[in-house]
């Protein structure tokens, strides 16, 4: 065992109970909210108001299965998957690119069908990049300060995947992946000048992307002028606000949302936070935010206290990617960020994102076994 994991030298601290509590709470909130928010859509699409909830419930159970498995596997094993995962992701994205070429008329697809399984490779890419950069940075250590030896390869490799996501086209996910990649690089101790030099042309490219699509430009412009005529420019945001606003302080009660009645678009996915805000009120909306904050806090703490740098980078990367999505999604729903479709981890209806989030949490929990995050009296007691 020692040979494989290299973790035996670290004492087992036990898995982080606070993190586990957050995951369980978020799961409960998520299931309840999805049940309420999806029932109308489910009834409309499948003629059965429970169908989407049941789907989500089954996924949650599978997700917990993944979580248990990942929490059991010593995290150091993942280092070995860093490069294969990147290559596999690249392969999946190529498949999507190829199938999109064949059916241009149908519009972009972000889904890959592998037999009965249907998933979004871009979600997988998120964790692949985190894993890869974590492994690379841990390997290179101080060399990350160098451009050629340090950050060039991981960034370049990531950018290939990100570019393939961007041409799906899934521009917003590509941006999110870039942000995660740069956060990883930044945390791993890269030279800030190098990062600045790389980011500038990327911003240029991103601007080019924005201005080449009327749809993206309009969105951005709308957002800039959001205060002027929110009703016209951002019907989704207005509907989200109506939901939040109707909720008030204590909310209208679970299941009582009216905005979910096919008025609020994407009520069960991207704008589920608004449904939660309508049903649970300001109290619920802020509580959810606090839950995520605690999750981020625990995640970073686990990373900072991790005995080896790979575990640290991996923990930070996982925490950032989940936390970034959560905070971005809530910010979008509340209308402080331009509208784009991002899932709310653990809460939104969805498959790939949910399963991978649980899997990632499993890895984080495994790392927590070795992090010294507990109050010292516990370890003293163990002495």
């Amino acid at each position, binding site marked *: 065992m020692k040979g494989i994991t290299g973790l035996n030298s670290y004492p087992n601290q036990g898995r982080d109970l606070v993190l586990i509590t957050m995951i369980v709470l978020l799961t409960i909130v998520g299931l309840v909210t999805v049940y309420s928010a999806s029932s109308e859509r489910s009834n409309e699409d499948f003629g059965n108001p429970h169908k989407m909830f049941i789907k989500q419930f089954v996924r949650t159970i599978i997700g917990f299965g993944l979580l248990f498995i990942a929490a059991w596997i010593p995290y150091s094993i993942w280092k070995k998957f860093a490069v294969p995962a990147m290559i596999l992701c690249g392969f999946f994205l190529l498949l999507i690119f190829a199938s999109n070429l064949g059916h241009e008329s149908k519009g972009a697809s972000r889904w890959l069908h592998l037999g009965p399984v249907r998933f979004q490779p871009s979600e997988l890419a998120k964790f692949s990049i985190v894993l890869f950069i974590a492994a690379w940075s841990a390997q290179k250590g101080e060399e990350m300060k160098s451009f050629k030896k340090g950050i060039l390869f991981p960034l370049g490799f990531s950018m290939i995947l990100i570019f393939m996501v961007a041409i799906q086209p899934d521009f917003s996910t590509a941006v999110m992946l870039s942000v995660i990649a740069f956060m990883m690089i930044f945390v791993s101790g890269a030279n800030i000048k190098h990062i600045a030099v790389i980011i500038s042309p990327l911003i240029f490219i991103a601007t080019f992307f924005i201005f080449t699509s009327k749809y993206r430009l309009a969105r951005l412009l709308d957002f800039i002028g959001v205060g002027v005529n929110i009703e016209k420019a951002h019907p989704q945001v207005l509907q989200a606000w109506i939901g939040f606003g109707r909720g008030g302080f204590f909310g209208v009660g679970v299941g009582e949302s009216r905005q979910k*009645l096919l008025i609020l678009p994407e009520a069960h996915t991207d704008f589920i936070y608004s449904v939660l805000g309508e049903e649970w009120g300001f109290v619920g909306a802020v509580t959810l*935010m606090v839950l995520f904050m605690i999750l981020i806090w625990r995640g970073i703490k686990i990373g900072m206290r991790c005995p080896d740098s790979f575990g640290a980078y991996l923990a930070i990367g996982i925490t950032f990617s989940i936390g970034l999505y959560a905070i971005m999604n809530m910010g979008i729903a*509340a209308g402080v960020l331009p509208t784009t479709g991002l899932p709310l981890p653990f809460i939104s209806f969805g498959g790939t994102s949910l399963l991978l989030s649980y899997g990632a949490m499993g890895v984080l929990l495994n790392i927590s076994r070795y992090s010294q995050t507990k109050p010292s009296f516990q370890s003293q007691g163990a002495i």
Partner: protein
Amino acid sequence: MKERLEWRERPKQSIPISRGRIIAILSPFFLLVLLTIIRLTEVQLVRHKEFTELAEIQQLCKREIEPSRGHILDRVGSELAVNLLDFTAIGINPSEIKNRNIVVTELSGILQIDATSIRKKLKEHTSFFWAARKVDPAVAEQVRSLGLSGVIVQKDTKRDYPYLKVGGQVVGYVNVDNEGLGGIELKFDHILSGTPGWEVLQRYGRKSRIKDNSLPRRHAVNGGTIILSIDINAQAIAEEELEKAVKAHDATGGMIVITKPATGEIIAIASSPRFDPNNFMDFSYIARQNRSVTVAFEPGSTFKVVPFAGLIDQKLIRIDEEVYCENGEYQIWDRMIRDTHLYQILKANEVLAKSSNIGTIKLAKRLDDDDFYTLIRDFGFGATTGIGLNGETRGLLRKPNKWSGVSHSNLSIGQGIGVTAVQLAIAYGAIANNGLLMRPLLVLSVSQSDGKTELFESEVVRRVLRPSTARAMRLLLAEAVEQGTGGNAIIEGIRVAGKTGTAQKVNHEKNEYYQDRFVSSFAGFLPVEQPELLAVIVIDDPQEQYFGGTVAAPVFKKVMERLMVILPCRQPYLTDDSENEEEFIEARVAPKLVGLTREEAEKILERKNITPVWIEEGEIVIVQGTPPGTPVRADGSIQLVLDPGIGKTEEIKVPDLKGMNLRQAMSTLTRIGLFPHVEGYGLVSDQIPAPGANLMVGDSCRIFAGKRAEMQLLEEGES
């Protein structure tokens, strides 16, 4: 343990991550979280009320609930007008149409309506409209199966008249929107149509609406049921015999009115040609009219009862006095009066029975112009009868100051006057009814859907003749049938009273009488002593035979013979025990009471010795059972409906919205219970109705905002 202690120090040495960089990354996170919480505070706490109102406005919509139209029944409860439920209406919601061309071609194909007319409607309407109503369910199913978006298939009711043409002119007809267009359907549309309710539905996506029992609603009040005095069997007999006669004599038309003279109830009323209210569009406007009330004609000899009744009543004549009848030719001013048969000397009773024009004119001269005119008015001529049907004519009657030298003479033989069949029936009714003129009674009761029933009782308009005069007239009329011109009306076993009439038609172009075109009529009742049934039959322009006695009198006989079989024998009508004329009290006339307070009304009625019967609780009289100027009921009571005051609390004054922004305006309206309909955006520039107008809860108020609204108002003004 050693390991642990060793390890515990390790992190400090080997934390690979810079705290500063973590904080640098986390700070935008925190900023975002802070911004989100600030926004949530604004939206959820500060603007909670505003968004709740906005939510209500967009999530809810009002839908009208159509009431079901009331039924029309005859006196025994036969359904003359009912609703068929299994029909379908096809509506179009233009905003939801994806492909106009497909919708237009498919609908015009299936519904067999002109494509251009649908296109035109599509251009005119921006919101929902009906493309077709009363569609056969099978056809509607075809439309439904197309699944066109924007095309709505909905249940619809169709007004049905099971007796087809029979009674059609009385019952009337409705248009596709179930609005009354003729007859009782028109006259009592306000009662039959009911009051639409509304319900607030919750929007479900863009298209659908769902019910939520917690939302406000007002139930539709279904239309009231109207019971007519018509007996549909009698009506059928009357119409059948009339049609037979019209056909047999190749006439252009005819009218028939059958009443119960004691009460004024109309048992049957019709005119030929007739129409089927189920398919009224297929018939001429003339056929749709109830010409017994809408058309006046010169009655001729049937009118002679009026001067005779006057002469007897004023005791200006002895029944057996002799009149020189000038041997058939008598000149008055420039007019030569002729009798059909030439008579030297006739007794007064024979003048009426044989229908001598000359004799009548000479006797009638004894009546003074004003008295004669008053008598004609008292008999109900020259005024509407109060039968309460739309389009009733009061006929033609000139005032004495406009009479020429021959007017008096003409009038006494029924010329120079226009009367309706109903007027004639009412006038004869006064003779049959011991001198009391009754208001014609066509509607017996109106029952609201909440069970409130208003009964219409028979009503005495006035006393026209003394009872003894009326009895004398009845005998004279019996003689006219038995020994005079009305021989064809004799029915074995029962004494018939009646008078024939044969009037030359007026050639309006040349302003003279046609020599060969006539209106033949017969008015009569039976039995003579206690008349139960009265009929007026008018045949317009019969060919070859034209005497009232040969054309109209046989119709009377046939109708009455058949009616006596089917109509159950009723007990004799209220005996007129006012043999002693002094006992007869002048009918008390109702004063105008509507608008007065309860106390004021009580005072006035006390003076007149009329007992008020109060309906509902309240302060102000809003309805009076007996209209002003008409005699009160026999028991000396009058029904007065007081304002229950329910309407007051529900009434809302429209506030002035001008200058408000839309959100303020909408929430102002919603708060007080009105539904806003917004056009344009920006500041409110105009509103309908204007500020200060009264609306009911749940009504809608249109608000116009910005420049777009001004233009729209202009356009509306121009069009």
